């Protein structure tokens, strides 16, 4: 009899698990829905962008559903998610691809189904898209080269254009176009504004806080007179901050990150991180939704939308007068 009881129990358990997890978000799909596919949400940057999408959708009065891969390296799982999302037949797919090719098969299917495609945060490469025959409605995101250049401008202003000394650049994940653009924008502008500041190393930190911390420690050992570190995102910059302060060189080394995320803002207010070139991910998400609505309504939308970036420093944050600060989440 016990076995009979458990036999029933087995079915119930299985179905129960399915139902329990479905109940978390039972949402019946509706017509005119937007699909939003992020890289990951395990990062305040993407969290802010998701908030922008949510607020933008609410203001514009549109429905959307959102998914994210488990990490920003899960290229194939993200493709699987994308394929599955198409089954809900959204009118638009707003995608932040993990790399420039992983979502292409899905985007092709979307295009065939007449779904509008938006490249969120500029992860797709126009040359590859042209070759594959995928037409994107628009790219939207920060201008990463400009963001890097703004970092260099800040550094040249702070140290003076005749300053001399070694500088470390910590790039993103190898081969990631965003990190490359930021590093390149920084390096080119720095050469132009303050040629005495020499980049002694430019290494991939894989977007990883711990890895960036180790790179900073190692570089400080090799170059004890290091004057500045530019990191392609805030997470890595915060890792570098820890290493620099641990080495007792907080006042000697200027550290700059990119993103302007909450952790970075906190660190800047505490006077540890010197600056972060804030990408306004909230604004990127919000404008993405607004522009998709326009495009769906037949309005003309530029092929590439650059959302401005803003250099956050302690002065800017304390003064609180910069109007774009409201978008720094």
């Amino acid at each position, binding site marked *: 009899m016990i076995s009979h009881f458990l036999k029933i129990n087995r079915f119930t358990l299985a179905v129960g698990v399915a139902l329990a997890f479905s109940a*978390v978000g039972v949402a019946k799909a509706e017509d005119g829905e937007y699909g939003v596919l992020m890289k990951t949400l395990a990062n305040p940057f993407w969290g802010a962008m998701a908030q922008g999408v949510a607020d933008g959708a609410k203001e514009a009065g549109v429905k959307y559903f959102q998914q994210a891969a488990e990490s920003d390296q899960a290229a194939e799982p993200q493709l699987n998610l994308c394929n*599955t999302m198409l*089954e*809900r037949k959204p009118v638009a797919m707003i995608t932040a691809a993990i790399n*420039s090719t992983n979502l292409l098969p899905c985007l092709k299917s979307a295009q065939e189904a007449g779904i509008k495609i938006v490249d969120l945060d500029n992860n797709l490469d126009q040359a590859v898209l042209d070759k594959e025959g995928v037409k994107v409605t628009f790219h939207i995101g920060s201008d990463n080269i400009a963001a890097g250049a703004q970092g260099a401008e800040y550094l040249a202003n702070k140290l003076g254009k005749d300053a001399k000394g070694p500088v470390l650049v910590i790039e993103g994940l190898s081969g990631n176009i965003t990190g490359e653009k930021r590093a390149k924008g920084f390096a080119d502008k720095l050469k132009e504004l303050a040629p005495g500041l020499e980049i002694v190393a430019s290494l991939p930190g894989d977007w990883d806080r711990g890895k960036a911390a180790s790179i900073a420690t190692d570089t400080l050992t090799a170059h004890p007179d290091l004057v500045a570190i530019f990191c392609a995102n805030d997470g890595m910059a915060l890792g570098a901050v820890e290493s620099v302060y641990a080495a007792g060189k907080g006042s000697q080394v200027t550290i700059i990150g990119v993103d302007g995320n909450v952790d970075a803002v906190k660190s800047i207010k505490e006077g540890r991180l010197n600056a972060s070139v804030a990408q306004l991910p909230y604004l990127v998400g919000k404008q993405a939704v607004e522009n998709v609505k326009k495009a769906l309504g037949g309005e003309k939308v530029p092929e590439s939308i650059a959302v401005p970036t803003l250099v956050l420093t302690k002065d800017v944050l304390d003064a609180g007068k910069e109007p774009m600060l409201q978008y720094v989440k």
Partner: protein
Amino acid sequence: MASETTQPGFWARVQRASVERLHIRLESLVVLLALSTAMALLSPYFLSLSNFLNILLATSTIGVLAIAATFVIGSGGLDLSLGSVMGLAGVAGAFVAVNLGWPSVFAVIACILAGGIAGYINGQLVTRAFVPAFIVTLGMLGLARGLALVISKGRAIYGLPPEIVYIGQGRPFGVPMPVIIFVLTAIVAHAVLAYTRFGRHTLALGDSEGAARAAGIRVEHHRRIIYTLSGALAGLAGLLFTARVNAGDPTAGINYELTAITAAIIGGTNLFGGRASILGTMIGALIMGVLQNGLTLLAVQSYYQQMAIGAVLILAVFIDQYQVRKESRV
């Protein structure tokens, strides 16, 4: 209880037939069907041919790895390097096709060969150096990943030739190529493990190495073949991955070994060897695939999906342990 053993009921007879003939536990099939029914009721998009193919497509890479995991675990071993070897194999194939510009067939060979060599090294170390499989394959996890990054200089290798991309994105008769490759591989692997001497010796080895040795099975030799096979299958998975995303990605397959092992365990493989079936593992992989697909269709955030899979894993082993205890009590 006694009456149940002398005159098994209908359910018991079907159960036994499925275990004996198909080598699967009926419970896992029931869970799969129950889940599918639940998803079909909850989402109007679940029950369609294109979504069915979607599930199989999403399961294909991990499914091939899970086949490898089933053989290794069934033989009483462990291969933690599956995901890394898969990444290495994909990069090796892309390197041959793109950087060397060799014909596509060599890229395919390179994938499987790279995986096979890594697996062969695992097997040699496990059987000759007496280093535990856990350590050997954990070491290979690092070695293969590092080598993939070295070969690719840390960057994904893009621009594969159309023949390779066809392997990942082509759809003969509307069926995605990875699905065709995956299903064929699974059928052959199931036949080998369940119905051939090689397969029976694999399970006997995992059950009791002493018994296998006493029965005249060349234990070390057999283990080396299993690890090599495991690596070669990881190579095939690497080919599918690379062809699907059109890039030899050195970060491909991170943590995939754990997902593959999960599929095998949900499918009824004994983690300590001796009991395993490919069909069971396929059901395990599909349970995970259906769960992920259905929850995505229901717009459930992916973090909950991971929780759901974790819960199913523990549940599956719980049911299995209960069954095993019940059988040994009768």
